[in-house]
């Protein structure tokens, strides 16, 4: 039975059917189709939740193997494993509104995420330090534009001079907007063509197959 669903033509048919079921009610108000499209969305939500269980199993198995084999970084994997099951157990026993359940999420996980986001600034500085070198004429122009834009962005500049803001507006409204729109047009057309290729089975990787 599973081999039947591994057949490329069966998969493409299912993909095309689901595509039609979602796209047709978007353009035409057909009550029955709307119901089916909504049901399809619910099925996707259920599948996502089920996939969470599979992911948790896969991750726990990997962590256990790493701890057992004492692989590089195994204490972190062990720590993660303990925390995941400890929080899940606390949530199941005491409920999601309980302090022992909320505290690790709000005090550790959320603050950890915020710290990690702020680290991006240091990555930007190190990337900038490597990139902002005037190796040729194009790089020199790029560097000058960047310096002018950054100068205009600084709040202090506004107090002393107005010309950097004018240059920033010119660069943004001409080169910046043009590049953004070219980018958007290219993406939109390529996205549609990729969609057609997928529906015709010309992107087999999407179905987990070799192309």
């Amino acid at each position, binding site marked *: 039975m599973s081999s039947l669903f591994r057949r490329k033509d069966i998969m493409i048919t299912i993909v095309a059917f689901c595509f039609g079921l979602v796209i047709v009610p978007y353009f035409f108000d057909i009550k029955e189709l709307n119901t089916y499209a909504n049901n399809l969305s619910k099925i996707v939500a259920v599948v*996502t939740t089920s996939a969470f269980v599979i992911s948790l199993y896969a991750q726990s198995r990997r962590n256990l193997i790493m701890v057992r084999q004492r692989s590089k970084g195994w204490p972190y994997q062990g720590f993660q494993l303990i925390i995941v099951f400890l929080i899940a157990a606390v949530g199941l026993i005491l409920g999601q509104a309980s302090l022992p359940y909320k505290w690790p999420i709000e005090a550790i996980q959320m603050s950890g995420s915020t710290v*990690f986001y702020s680290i991006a600034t240091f990555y930007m500085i190190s990337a900038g330090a490597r990139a902002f070198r005037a190796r040729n004429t194009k790089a020199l122009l790029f560097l000058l534009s960047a310096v002018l834009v950054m100068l205009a962005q600084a709040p202090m500049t506004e107090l002393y001079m107005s010309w950097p803001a004018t240059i920033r507006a010119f660069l943004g409204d001409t080169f910046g907007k043009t590049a953004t729109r070219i980018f958007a047009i290219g993406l939109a057309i390529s996205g549609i063509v990729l969609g057609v290729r997928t529906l015709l089975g010309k992107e087999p990787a999407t*179905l987990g197959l070799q192309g």
Partner: protein
Amino acid sequence: MRRGKLPYLRRVLALDVIEDAVGRSTEMGRPILESYGTVAFDQFVIASLSTLSYVARLAAKVDNRVIVPIGGNPGSMITRPVAVDIVKSAYEAEGKGELFNENDMPFLSYEFFSFAAGYVGLILRERPGAVIVGPETADALMYVEEANAVGALTIATGYYIANVAVLACAANYVMIGEEALAAGAYLSKEQSRITSLRTVDIFKFLAIVLVVVGVILVQLKNNFIIDLLSI
């Protein structure tokens, strides 16, 4: 288009160097690390899965490992089984099924920055020879910079304009927007898929004509094109 003749294709350097990147990693005795994006199936994830399929097959040919960190969004749990299938079947297609290890495709977390922290940790521990960063957002720069710190060759996907600017500074090679979407067709070298890229060029040319005509008409106080596109 005449049958049997492939249309001219502009070279996409970021895709052309993938083979060299895999070879370089293998010579260095290091694995390849590739991610395919954090969200559920969107056009960029679909395109990145094609690249993953190609990379996994190249890695299988030279008996190397492909590490694929997965997560960053609840949607990534749906794409995971597909990605696992792709890499597994790539190794099997090369007759190296025994080399496939599902533990090399860890699901790190569905929380965005927890995933990012895990990804960076993976780069530092595994020290890959090449890192191919998929359509990631604010976290892409972190991966590329860490990969650079461990001496890996970096190929990144810039899928929105601000990301392209940042990755152009940090990565060795960048796939810019539509180049990433064309990856599957470009790497396959199949005529039927490559011709679809020419279709993109034709429609882009039409879009340019529409823009130019629209600008001229607006100068003549005629809003025909604007009204047409506002339908």
